[in-house]
């Protein structure tokens, strides 16, 4: 599966997770985001440098888990509504 397709699945799946959990918060250093705010950043082209780095690190870890962890991959595809 191509990288862009993986990111598309991840973003869709994580957006679904964020919608289900409106009260959960991510703390990243001195900043905090709701899941919804954080997932919105995954698609955004206009990010501050530190947010861009945070998003890139997150997507790198998520892609790694998607490629290496079959349970995670299956769950992401299910959440994104992709046929498995």
């Amino acid at each position, binding site marked *: 599966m191509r990288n862009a397709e993986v990111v598309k699945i991840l973003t869709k*799946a*994580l957006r679904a*997770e*964020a919608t289900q*959990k409106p*009260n*959960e*918060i*991510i*703390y*990243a*250093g*001195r900043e*905090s985001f709701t*899941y919804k705010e*954080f*997932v919105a950043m995954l698609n955004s082209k206009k990010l501050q440098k530190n947010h861009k*780095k*945070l998003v890139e*690190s*997150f997507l*790198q*870890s*998520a892609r*790694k*888990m998607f490629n290496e*962890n079959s*349970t*995670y991959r299956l*769950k*992401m595809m299910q*959440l994104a509504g992709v046929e498995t």
Partner: protein
Amino acid sequence: MTVAVLVAPKFDSATEYSYDWSREAKALLEQKGYEVIDIGGRRVARDEVEEALKENPNAIYIHFNHGSEDAHWGSEAEKVMDLDNVDLLFQREVYCMNCLSAKELGIEAWKHKATAYWGYVEVFTFTTEALDEFQEFANSGLKFRLEGKSWNECLQLAKDLAKALAQKLVEAGKYIASVILQGDADVLRCYTEDMPPTSDCVFRRLCLKIFGPKIGWKFPSPRLETLIISQIRKMGKVNVN
């Protein structure tokens, strides 16, 4: 009695969590017979930390709070440890639950002969959805160390634990939290005499390869590459693009 200087300031919502987690660290140390000098639960001044470290030259130093590449913070505005007082870490074990400090301060501490420096080279991130798991991971290195493991073993065990916790979170449907926890594990470092810092910088890696870690890290700054390229450009001898 062995002494631990535990610095765990509290002044915003993120540090309320890190302070909470530091209570477990304190209990673990006390169970193992450490006398814990507990400085925290409020804003902490640099003087307090320096005094405690000077009075206890062999104490393990533990910091739970915000960090940056070159510092440990005691409040919104005050650094309790940075490149100007890093010599206080000489021959100490240093355990950090803070962001980024292994990137620069940790390397300086290692150069100043800290026995061990445990910390993160990027931002430590956590979510409210999996606080127990993040706490377990954050305190795991100290826990393993107090069980008598070498720092090398502690690092491997902590990374193994993170993998298991991330899997547990996946199975519980906490996907965002699982990725974040795995990401924290990926940026965890421990520098000791046997495990010197490494670098992504080509020139630094070359220096380390040629001269070894003790001399290789003495060359100035991670900006070495930029410095050399700018010098070549100034000399106008080579067109570097």
